[in-house]
């Protein structure tokens, strides 16, 4: 009987479980390297002017992981909402039923002769009634008590501890590098000269001379068809070598004097990278080209600009020139200044800040992040802003590019400045 009550009670007790996970302090931390796949080819650049050697290496991508071991606690909280009331009811039932049963002998055993029921029997004695009620109370109390006890026994907190690993950080990097041989292809920009330059490596290396690369407009480097990756520092070195190979050797003075302005400036810009890869030779080349530019500028009073109409105010200038370019901060036209030659002859409206006045007739004006040179004609009837940092508005015509203090910037001939 008691077994049946207990079994029934176990089934009746509804126990709620709440599980939460908490992590404890770090027990230890260590680093490990795992393969992240995606192998590739990288190149290192060694320059010994006039040669450059590219060393190719196959590599894998590895991930350096920092792993922390921590204690993880899984806490299961169990509670039976009905356990308390059931236990209380059970205790009351069992206590009162047990008391009635225990003290039944104290009750009269005489039947109740005052009452005769429908069947002709006297009413039960007080002892019989007490016994009956004790049975009823015990029948209710015992299962309730068992249910309550079972529920309370199953309530509580259970903690499972285990050691777990968690990834604190991960950083990918090339690894397992090993020299690799194959066919290297220097791919030119489409439409820039003949086809690609193909050379086989030996011992994972290939060497080019500046002559070989002087006319190369390089788009990418491939090995056996796969794109070769240049680390940032190596890429800078290779680009400097390519740029310098376009500038050196510098033509003779006679050849220099025959060069067009644009070609001269382009060559000078290429030569400015030579210092880092060609040493003294490179510096001499840049100096020679720079000197030729200075010589030409010294030979004329200022930039060659066409005479334009002579306005008498800013509005007058705007009406006369009808500017199509707006060179102001945030304007899209500012981006077009990267190629001033293509804008030559275009009227422009300028809103910017006077940064510097170079000589008497050249102003450096900053428009957004771009800087441009504004040429003030010697016979200008308008004034020049008195101090650096002054905001100015001007109407003018784009002339082209002017190299000043070793910097090539767009040059605009002012029609009016306000």
């Amino acid at each position, binding site marked *: 009987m008691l077994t049946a009550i207990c079994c029934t009670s176990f089934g009746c007790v509804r126990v709620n479980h709440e599980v939460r996970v908490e992590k404890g302090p770090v027990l230890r931390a260590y680093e490990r390297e795992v393969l992240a796949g995606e192998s590739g080819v990288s190149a290192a650049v060694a320059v010994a002017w006039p040669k450059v050697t590219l060393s190719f290496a196959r590599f894998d991508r590895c991930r350096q992981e920092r792993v922390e071991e921590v204690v993880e606690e899984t806490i299961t909280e169990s509670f039976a909402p009905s356990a308390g009331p059931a236990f209380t009811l059970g205790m009351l039932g069992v206590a009162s039923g047990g008391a009635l049963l225990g003290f039944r002998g104290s009750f009269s055993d005489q039947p109740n002769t005052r009452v005769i*029921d*429908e069947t002709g029997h*006297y009413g039960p004695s007080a002892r019989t009634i007490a016994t009956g009620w004790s049975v009823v109370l015990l*029948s209710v109390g015992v299962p309730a008590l068992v249910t309550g006890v079972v529920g309370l026994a199953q309530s509580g907190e259970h903690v499972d501890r285990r050691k777990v690993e968690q990834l604190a950080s991960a950083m990918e990097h090339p690894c397992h590098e090993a020299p690799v041989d194959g066919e290297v292809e220097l791919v030119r920009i489409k439409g820039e000269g003949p086809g690609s330059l193909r050379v086989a490596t030996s011992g994972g290396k290939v060497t080019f001379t500046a002559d070989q690369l002087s006319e190369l407009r390089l788009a990418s480097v491939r090995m056996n068809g796969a794109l070769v990756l240049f680390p940032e520092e190596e890429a800078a070195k290779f680009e400097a070598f390519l740029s310098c190979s376009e500038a050196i050797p510098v033509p003779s003075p006679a050849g220099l004097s025959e060069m067009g302005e644009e070609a001269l400036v382009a060559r000078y810009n290429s030569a400015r990278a030579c210092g880092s890869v060609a040493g003294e030779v490179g510096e001499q080349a840049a100096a020679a080209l720079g000197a030729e530019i200075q010589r030409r500028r010294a030979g004329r009073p200022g930039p060659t600009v066409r005479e334009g109409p002579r306005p008498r105010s800013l509005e007058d200038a705007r009406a006369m020139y009808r500017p199509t370019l707006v060179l102001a901060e945030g304007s899209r036209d500012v981006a077009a200044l990267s190629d001033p030659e293509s804008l030559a002859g275009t009227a422009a409206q300028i809103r910017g800040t006077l940064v510097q006045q170079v000589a008497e007739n050249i102003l450096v004006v900053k428009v957004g992040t771009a800087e441009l040179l504004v040429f003030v004609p010697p016979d200008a009837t308008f004034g020049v802003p008195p101090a650096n940092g002054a905001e100015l508005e001007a109407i003018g015509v784009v002339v082209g590019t002017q190299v000043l203090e070793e910097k090539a910037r767009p040059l605009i001939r002012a029609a009016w400045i306000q």
Partner: protein
Amino acid sequence: MTTGGKLFAALAALAAAGCSGPEAPDAALCRDVIHRLCIAPRCDSVENGLSPGDDCEGTLQGRTGCGDDAFSFGTPNRARFIDCRATLVRGGVDPDAHPACEDVDAMFTKCPELTGFFKGAP
């Protein structure tokens, strides 16, 4: 009522149903019915049908012989008397509760021999 309450009530009813004392003697049974019939105000069927007079219980006990503890049923017998009494106590077995006159009438209708019994017919 909740399930627990229903269960408790059922158990209580079962306990009560299973609880009764010994059989009441015939004299006690007879006196119980006479007591109920004589509770004032008496019903017409008692007043007119049995004419008990002022000492209703004494008169009817005298007529039936129930006043003697040694009394035992003849006609009607005990079983029949209990069956007839059941109609009278269907409103409750409390001996001091006045029975409904409809129940009194119904008892005499169901058991016409009781009229003769209470009139002292042999």
